[in-house]
C-alpha cells in the first residue's frame, strides 16, 4: 500500500487547517473537531476517521507544527484510555458504524473512556473473569463487578469484557463490549487509594443492557480482541521524544542543585546511579522511537514499562529520603476524585506513593517479565492446568 499523502502534503494540510481555524480565535473543541475532520488527528488512521492513511511516523511533524502555532492539544492524560486502548481496538475490530460513532468524540476528548477489565477475582489472570453477559433479544444483559477502574467516574463509555459462555475453556467464552457508563445499572463507587485520592473505582454492573450493536468482534472472540487492547496498553511508551532529565529524575536533580544543605555522600552515590539509569532508559526509549520511525519495530517496547516502573519507584523513594524533615510530611490526604491521571505532579511523597502503581497497573512487572521471557526470549511456558477445562469447572 503506497501512502496516500506524503510529508509535504501533510504540511500543506496542516497550514490550511491553521489558516482556516486560527488557534488564537477558535474555540478549543471546535479546533480539535476541525483537526480531526482534516485527517490530522492520527494521520495513520483511515480517511474520514481522523486520518489520511499516511505513515504513522509523519504524525510527529504535524504535532510539532501545530504545537509551534500554539494550537490546543487533546490532553492525552485525561483521555489516555480512550486514545491508547479503546481507539486502536475499535479501529481493528469495530463496524463502520461503531468507528464513525465513537472515534471522533473520543479523540476530541468530548467523551472520556474507561476500561472495565479487572475484577476482584481476575487481575493478572484476566481470562478468569466472572462478569456474565447473557443474550436477550437484541441486547446483552450484564451482571458482575469490576474493580480498580481508573477514571470511571469521569467516563462516558467503557470497554468491557464479559463471559458469554461458561461451558467453554476460559479464554474462549469471553466477548468484548462497549458499555454506556451512564446506564442506570452501572454503579461507580470511589475506591480510595494509597495516595488518599480516588483515581480508580469499584464498578457494579446489575442488569446493564448493552445492545448487540455495541459488541466489538464476534461472540466468544473477546479474548483475542482484548489482546489488541492490552498490547497497546503496554507498548504505549516510546512514541515521543523525552528530553534529558525529562522524567522523575528531573525534580530530584533540581532539588540536589538548589539545596546543597540536603546532600549526603550516600544519597549522592544513589542519585548518580539512578541518574545514569534514567539517562540510559531515555536513550533506550529514543532508540525504540527511531526503530519505529524507520519501520523496524523491535520488542524493546515491552521492556520500557518495566524499566520506568522500577526507576520511578527508586527515584521517588530517594527523593523522599533526600528531603529529610520535609520528607516526613505529605501534601494533602483529602479524598478527591481527580479527573487526570498525574504521575509526576504534586510533591515527593505523592510521587513515591503513586509510583507504586506503576508496577501493577496495565500488567504487573512479574507478568511483563513472563511475557518478555516467553515471547521475546522464547523460553518455555510453565506447565498449566487450565487450558482445556470449561471455565465453570475451574477451581476458584
Amino acid at each position, binding site marked *: 500500500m503506497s501512502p496516500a499523502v506524503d510529508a509535504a502534503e501533510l504540511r500543506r494540510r496542516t497550514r490550511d487547517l491553521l489558516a482556516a481555524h486560527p488557534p488564537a480565535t477558535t474555540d478549543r473543541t471546535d479546533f480539535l473537531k476541525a483537526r480531526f475532520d482534516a485527517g490530522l488527528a492520527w494521520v495513520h488512521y483511515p480517511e474520514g476517521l481522523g486520518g489520511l492513511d499516511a505513515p504513522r511516523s509523519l504524525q510527529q511533524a504535524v504535532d510539532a507544527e501545530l504545537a509551534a502555532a500554539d494550537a490546543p492539544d487533546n490532553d492525552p492524560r485525561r483521555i489516555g484510555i480512550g486514545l491508547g486502548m479503546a481507539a486502536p481496538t475499535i479501529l481493528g475490530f469495530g463496524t463502520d458504524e461503531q468507528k464513525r460513532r465513537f472515534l471522533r468524540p473520543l479523540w476530541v476528548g468530548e467523551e472520556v473512556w474507561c476500561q472495565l477489565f479487572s475484577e476482584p477475582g481476575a487481575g493478572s489472570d484476566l481470562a478468569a473473569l466472572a462478569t456474565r453477559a447473557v443474550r436477550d433479544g437484541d441486547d446483552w444483559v450484564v451482571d458482575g463487578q469490576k474493580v480498580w477502574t481508573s477514571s470511571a467516574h469521569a467516563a462516558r463509555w467503557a470497554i468491557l469484557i464479559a463471559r458469554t459462555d461458561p461451558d467453554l475453556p476460559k479464554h474462549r467464552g469471553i466477548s468484548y463490549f462497549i458499555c454506556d457508563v451512564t446506564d442506570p445499572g452501572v454503579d461507580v463507587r470511589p475506591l480510595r487509594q494509597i495516595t488518599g485520592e480516588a483515581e480508580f473505582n469499584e464498578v457494579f454492573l446489575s442488569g446493564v443492557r448493552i445492545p448487540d450493536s455495541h459488541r466489538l468482534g464476534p461472540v466468544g472472540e473477546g479474548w483475542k480482541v482484548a489482546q489488541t487492547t492490552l498490547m497497546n496498553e503496554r507498548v504505549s511508551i516510546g512514541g515521543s*521524544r523525552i*528530553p*534529558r*532529565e525529562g522524567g522523575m529524575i528531573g525534580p530530584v*536533580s*533540581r532539588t*540536589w*542543585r*538548589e539545596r*546543597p544543605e540536603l*546532600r*549526603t*555522600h550516600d544519597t*549522592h*552515590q544513589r*542519585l*548518580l*546511579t539512578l*541518574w*545514569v*539509569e534514567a*539517562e*540510559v*532508559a531515555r*536513550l*533506550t526509549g*529514543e*532508540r525504540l522511537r*527511531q*526503530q519505529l520511525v*524507520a519501520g*523496524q519495530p523491535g520488542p*524493546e517496547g515491552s*521492556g520500557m514499562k*518495566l*524499566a520506568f516502573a522500577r526507576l520511578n519507584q527508586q527515584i521517588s523513594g530517594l527523593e523522599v529520603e533526600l528531603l529529610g524533615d520535609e520528607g516526613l510530611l505529605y501534601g494533602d490526604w483529602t479524598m478527591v476524585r481527580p479527573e487526570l491521571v498525574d504521575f509526576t505532579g504534586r510533591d515527593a511523597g505523592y510521587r513515591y506513593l503513586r509510583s507504586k502503581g506503576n508496577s501493577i497497573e496495565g500488567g504487573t512487572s*512479574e507478568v511483563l*517479565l*513472563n511475557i*518478555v*521471557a*516467553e515471547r*521475546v*526470549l*522464547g*523460553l*518455555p*511456558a*510453565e*506447565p498449566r492446568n487450565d487450558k482445556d477445562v470449561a471455565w465453570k469447572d475451574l477451581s476458584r
Partner: protein
Amino acid sequence: MTARTEPQPQPATPDLLYSQDEEDLRSAVRALLADRAAAPTVIAATEADTPYDPRLWEALATGIGAAGLLVPEKLGGQGASHREAAVVLEELGRSVAPAPYLTSSVVATETLLALAGDGGPAAALLGELASGARTAVLAVPFATPPADPAAALATLDGTVRGIADAAVADVLLVPTAEGLYAVEATAPGAAVEPLVPLDLTRPLATLTLSVATGTLLAAPEASATAVERGLLAGAGLLASEQLGIAEWCLTETVRYTRERHQFNRPVGSFQALKHRMAQLWLEVVSARAAARNAADALATGSPDAPLAVAVAQAYCSGVAVHAAEECVQLHGGIGMTWEHPAHLYLKRAKADSIAYGSAGTHREAVAELVELPAP
C-alpha cells in the same frame, strides 16, 4: 560551585540505529570470528605461548580493513568512524577473541590521530597501524580513566605496570613529562615483562624503561590532550565490547536453559530463571542504546561525547558482569568448568569493568559534567 536552575542543555539527537554498512561489516567480522575464533580455539590459545593468532589479526585488520576504520583515507585508513569500530568491538566481545583491536586500533590510533594533523612521525605510524602491519599500545595502566590520565613518567626511564596488549605490541606510546614518545618494543633499554592476567584473552605486561630511546611525537601539553582523547575513545567503545559480551552470555543462557531438563521440565521454564533472563534482556537492550549513543557522540565529535562515554561506561560495565555471572550460575556445574567458555566471558567482563575507569569513576565524571556535585 553555583547552583543552577535552568534545564540541562539538550544534545542533538543521536542516531542510535545501525546502518546497512554497519550490518554488513558486522556479518563479515562475525563470519571471520566464527571461523577463526570459536570457543575451543580461544580456550586452547589461552594456554599457548603466543597470546594472539597472527592469521586472525591479519584477516581482521588487513582482510576486512578493521584496523584502519578510524583513520582517514589520506592517512592510509578506511575513513569510517567510531560507529563502525563499535560494531567490530561488539563482535570481538561476543567471541572474546584475543586481538589487540581496542588497544591498538582504537586507543593508540585515536591518540595518534590527535597528533597527525601536520604529517610527521605520528602520521607515519598511524599509516602502519591502519594497515594492520604493526600494532601499538598506549603505555598507561589499563585501569586509567580518560578524565584523569595517570601520572606520566618523568623521562623514558621507569616502570609502567599493567599495560594491556603491551606483550604483543610493536610500538609503545609512552607519555612522559617531556612529551609523548614512540618507543620500539625491541629498543635497547625497553623491557616488556608479561604478567598473569585475570582475563586470559587480553594479556597484560609491565614495561620497564632504563634510559631508553624513542621518537618524540608531541610536546607535553599536546601529549596530555592526545592521551585523553585516546582514552575517551577507548572507554566509549569498550561499552560496545561489553554489550557484545552481555549479548553472548544472555543468548547462550537462554539456549542452554531451554534444552537442559531437570524435574522433568526444561529449567528455562521455571519462573525464577525466566525473570532473571528477562531482566538481563532489558539490561542488554538498554546497554545497546547507551553504547550506540557513546559511539555516535564520538563519531560526530559531539560536545556531549564525554557525558555519553561516562554514562555508557557507568552502565555497561555492570551489565556485562551481571550477564556473565548469571551465565555461569544458570549453567550450573558446567558453568564452572574450564572447558565451557562461560569463564572466559566472566574474566573478560570483570577485567573490562576496571579498564579505562570503573563504573564508579565514570559516575563521578557524570556528577561533574551534569553538575550534581558531591556534598
